[in-house]
C-alpha cells in the first residue's frame, strides 16, 4: 500500500487514512481487510487526482457525495488490496477541519502517511462502537504525548 500513498503524495491528493489501518500505523498490531481513506466529499478536482493516481485499478470513476448521502462509501478491489473511500461518516468531523488536525505516521516501510488526528480517530472509533473499535480506543488512549501530537513511530 506504500505505493498508493506515494502516488497520492505525488499527485497532491487530499486524504486522511482512517479506520483499522490508521490504528495499525499508530502502533497497534491489528488486522484490517481494508484501507479506508477519508476524502473531501465534493472536491471534484481531488477525485480526478485520485483517479489519475490509481489509473486502471479503479474500475469506475469516483463520484462526489450525493444530496441524500449517496456514494458516501466507495469500495474498490485493487492490486494493493481493498481501498475504501469515505466521503463522510458517523463520528467524522468535516474534512476541512479533520485535515487541520491530521497526524502523520509512517508505514512499516517508512512511508509518511497522513492519518486522521488522534482525538478524531478516537471519536470515530467510539461512535462505531464495535468490540474491535473499543479495543482500538483503549489502545489509542494509552499513546504517549509525543505520539498523540503527531510524532512518528520508531522505525526500529
Amino acid at each position, binding site marked *: 500500500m506504500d505505493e498508493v500513498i506515494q502516488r497520492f503524495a505525488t499527485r497532491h491528493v487530499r486524504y486522511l487514512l482512517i479506520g483499522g489501518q490508521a490504528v*495499525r*500505523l*499508530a*502502533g*497497534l*498490531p*491489528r*488486522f484490517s*481487510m481494508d484501507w479506508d481513506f477519508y476524502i473531501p466529499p465534493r472536491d471534484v478536482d481531488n477525485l480526478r487526482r485520485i483517479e489519475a493516481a490509481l489509473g486502471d485499478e*479503479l*474500475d*469506475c470513476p469516483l*463520484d462526489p457525495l*450525493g444530496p*441524500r*448521502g*449517496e*456514494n*458516501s*462509501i*466507495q*469500495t*474498490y*478491489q485493487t492490486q494493493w*488490496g*481493498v481501498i*475504501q473511500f469515505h466521503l463522510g*461518516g*458517523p463520528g467524522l468531523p468535516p474534512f476541512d477541519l479533520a485535515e487541520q488536525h491530521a497526524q502523520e*505516521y*509512517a*508505514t*512499516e516501510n517508512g512511508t509518511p502517511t497522513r492519518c486522521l488526528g488522534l482525538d478524531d480517530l478516537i471519536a470515530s472509533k467510539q461512535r462505531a462502537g464495535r468490540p474491535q473499535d473499543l*479495543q482500538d480506543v*483503549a*489502545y489509542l488512549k*494509552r*499513546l*504517549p504525548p509525543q*505520539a498523540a501530537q503527531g510524532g512518528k*513511530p*520508531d*522505525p*526500529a
Partner: protein
Amino acid sequence: MKRTDDINAKLDFWAAKPRATALPRLANLPRFGHRKFSSYEELNTWKQALLAELVARGGAQWTK
C-alpha cells in the same frame, strides 16, 4: 496470569513504544467490482456477505 494473556498489559506494551507492524494480507478474497454505498449499514451487509462467501470457499488464506 501471563502477561501475554492480559490484553491490557499488551496494550500498555505496544503503546509504550508505538510502531507500525507489518501483518499478513488476505490472499483469496473473492473478486468484486466497485461498490458504492449510502450508509454503513449497507456497507456492513455487503461485507458480511463477502466474508460468508470467503468462508464458503474454505476460509481465508494469508500472504505477506
